């Protein structure tokens, strides 16, 4: 049994405590340790990714208590992909936060950041439903702190709304877990899968209630319409690097849906078969439409990026709703793409806001920006990635989703929706871009040379853009890995055997 699995949880947890206790007032030391921790986390995550690539399901029994009595961490391909994505995103966005000085605009940015990473990695790795709740709470409580980092009246109010919404979600999560425990007598995910399969289909009302409640909880996290109301204000008001990291948080909800509805309430389980796929599909189509129309209708850049995040979740959830191997592989590919693209969009929006002075994020003609050309290019790249145009990975992702949904009943509706909303997104991004970058007013302080800009934020943005390009260039090898991931997810017997020690 390898101890490396627990590192993505332990390392940020210990680091956060050390950052708080030992170097509270030394922003320089905090930056060094935080970046070093993120680099180590990324290295470990890549190691786990390679290890999981062999197809083994690694189980880590915390405290050496055997499952289903103890809590287990489980590493399979999907967990490894998501942890590696988290670590990579966190490192790049952390560099942006340091370069732009966001981390110094309030206290305790780095410890909260590390706790956030601990919660996200834990949620991806855990093999216990109640432990998933605990990691959700860890990542949420850190996100509450990060959300109101640097303060401000509107941000605090948006933060309160965000906290209230998520506390309601947590309550619902506990009700769901209680129901499932009352029916099955276990909370270990592999054990739940076995017990749920033993329940006769005509005596499964409570099980279906539990499954539905859980779905609602994950739908809140994944911002599925009509449970998305927390997202626009939160993402638009949060500090930009935090909003960029939050790009992975909606994916936690999508991951949980994927995990629970392939492993426990799988397509083969009579009691809960066809319980959520229709709701998920139509909800996702609605999410996509509202997100993309929101891009067109947004009057501020922050809200535009927030609605782009909602729209990308729509495409992702459409792919998940297929519940076939091909659609799952497409969904994970699109999840990787939309995380990188969403984060890039938030960072570019921040670059623009920081340089426009009083005009900030409002979509009205403003002064010419410092480094106008570079930022215009970055916006162009982010817009292409978000709208899903070639040559970037958004195009390949959408193509994969379209291909995977070919055999579904509502295929024409899905295709029309995805292609139509892509056009709306292109229009929205083009409109916003032309207002911000082309319709510049004559600057009144033109004589003044613009202050020197730090290079690190641009480096971080170009790294994200490079990641999107690499995802498109290496789509073949990535898809091979993800197809194996999907195959592993849709054959949960190996996972269950590994956890319950029958393998």
């Amino acid at each position: 049994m390898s101890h490396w699995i627990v590192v993505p949880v332990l390392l940020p947890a210990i680091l956060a405590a050390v950052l708080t206790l030992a170097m509270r007032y030394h922003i320089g030391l905090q930056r060094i340790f935080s970046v070093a921790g993120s680099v180590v986390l990324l290295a470990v995550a890549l190691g786990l990714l390679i290890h999981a690539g062999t197809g083994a399901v690694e189980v880590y029994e915390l405290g050496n208590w055997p499952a289903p009595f103890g809590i287990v961490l489980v590493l399979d391909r999907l967990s490894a992909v998501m942890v590696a994505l988290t670590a990579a995103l966190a490192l790049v966005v952390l560099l942006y936060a340091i370069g732009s000085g966001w981390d110094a605009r309030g206290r305790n940015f780095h410890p909260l950041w590390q706790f956030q990473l601990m919660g996200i990695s834990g949620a991806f790795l855990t093999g216990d439903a109640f432990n998933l709740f605990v990691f959700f709470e860890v990542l949420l409580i850190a996100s509450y702190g990060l959300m109101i980092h640097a303060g401000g009246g509107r941000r605090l109010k948006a933060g309160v709304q965000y906290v209230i919404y998520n506390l309601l979600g947590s309550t619902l999560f506990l009700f769901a877990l209680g129901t499932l425990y009352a029916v099955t007598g276990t909370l270990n995910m592999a054990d739940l899968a076995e017990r749920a399969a033993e329940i006769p289909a005509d005596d499964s009302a409570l099980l279906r209630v539990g499954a539905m409640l859980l779905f609602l909880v994950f739908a809140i996290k994944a911002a599925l319409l009509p449970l998305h109301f927390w997202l626009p204000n939160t993402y638009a008001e949060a500090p930009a690097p935090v909003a960029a990291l939050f790009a992975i948080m909606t994916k936690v909800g999508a991951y949980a849906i994927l995990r629970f509805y392939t492993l426990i309430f799988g397509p083969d389980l009579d009691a809960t078969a066809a319980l959520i796929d229709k709701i998920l599909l139509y909800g996702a189509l609605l999410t996509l439409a509202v997100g993309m129309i929101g891009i067109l209708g947004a009057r501020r850049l922050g809200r535009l990026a927030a609605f782009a995040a909602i729209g990308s979740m729509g495409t992702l959830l459409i792919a998940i709703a297929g519940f076939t191997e091909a659609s799952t592989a497409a969904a994970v590919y699109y999840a990787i793409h939309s995380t990188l693209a969403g984060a890039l969009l938030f960072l570019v929006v921040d670059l623009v806001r920081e340089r426009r002075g009083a005009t900030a994020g409002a979509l009205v003609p403003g002064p010419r920006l410092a480094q106008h050309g570079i930022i215009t290019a970055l916006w162009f790249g982010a817009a292409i990635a978000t709208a899903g145009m070639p040559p970037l990975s958004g195009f390949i992702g959408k193509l994969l989703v379209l291909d995977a949904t070919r055999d579904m009943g509502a295929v024409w509706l899905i295709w029309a929706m995805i292609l139509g909303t892509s056009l709306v997104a292109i229009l929205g991004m083009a409109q916003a871009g032309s207002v911000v970058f082309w319709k510049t007013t004559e600057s009144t302080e033109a004589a003044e040379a613009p202050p020197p800009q730090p290079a690190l934020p641009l480096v971080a943005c170009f790294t994200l853009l490079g990641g999107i390009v690499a995802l498109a260039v290496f789509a073949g090898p990535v898809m091979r890995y993800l197809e194996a991931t999907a195959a592993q997810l849709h054959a949960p017997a190996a996972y269950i055997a590994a956890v319950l020690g029958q393998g």
Partner: protein
Amino acid sequence: MELLMASAIGVMTAAGLYLVLRLRTFPVILGLALLTYAVNYFLFATGRLVVNAPPVLRDGVETYTDPLPQALVLTAIVISFGMTAVVVMMALGAYLTARDDDVTLPPEDSTEREGGA
């Protein structure tokens, strides 16, 4: 006992939901607190209601109560306690900066900086 428990959970959930849907932060926080009470009782009841039974295996005892929900409730209590403290602090901060305790965001003013420091 089952009826008492079930109706208590139901009434608390209903009252909590009603309060959460109010517009001021204080009733909303009270509502959240009521909801967490309700969910704690609910979790407690998931292990079946048994009176005067030991939660650990012992010789010569036939009826047991399920110990796991008690551990789960303890975790849930600790977490909801912490979360309530956080939301109280944030609501207080929002109240002190904006001078009103309305939950809704004011309409966006195009001259105000969005996402700025």
